[in-house]
């Protein structure tokens, strides 16, 4: 899933390590989410949104798979 996590994180002046510490996850998890290799759980997505005081939709971009239908 595409997301703007890296862009938002850098705007707030946070490193991956710092964000990981705030969310109580590993730095590798943040890295994997940012490059789209791993989709966070709904709980983690909410925590990320709350951390940045934004809605989930502003951070994570859901695009329907055209091949699904």
């Amino acid at each position: 899933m595409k997301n703007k996590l890296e862009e938002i994180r850098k705007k707030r002046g946070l490193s991956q390590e710092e964000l990981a510490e705030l969310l109580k996850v590993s730095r590798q998890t943040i890295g994997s989410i940012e490059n789209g290799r791993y989709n966070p759980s709904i709980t983690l997505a909410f925590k990320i949104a709350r951390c940045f005081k934004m809605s989930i939709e502003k951070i994570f971009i859901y695009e329907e798979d055209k091949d699904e239908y």
Partner: protein
Amino acid sequence: MNIKKEKTFFVVLLILGAALILAGIIIDHLSEFDTEGILSGLGGGWVIISWFKLYQIKKHPDRYVKEKTEASDERSIAIRGMASYCTFLLSLILFAILALIFTYLNYTLPAVIAGIAFFIQFVGFIVFVFYYRHKL
């Protein structure tokens, strides 16, 4: 993550390990029963692990917390889940192949054992699928 709880757990494990070592020595030397060093060995393992963990917690608490967080974060759990599933499939295939090979070579007992192992894993998988299907 509660570091105090972790400390308590490993202190308890250390004491239990020491008690097991003592119990093993007493049973081996003072009774006719021979544990063949199993109790002492188990206790020794617990003592070494808990000593090492308590040392880590004392000397590098931040690193310890970081390692525990990394081990228990959702991505690590997802990775372990996927790896477990792949390993399960691999062992299922392996037991099936072994059962066939042993049957071909006329080794009856190993073939039966491999076949039973395959059957138990397969049935266990079906049972867990039904269980989690109802639970979730």
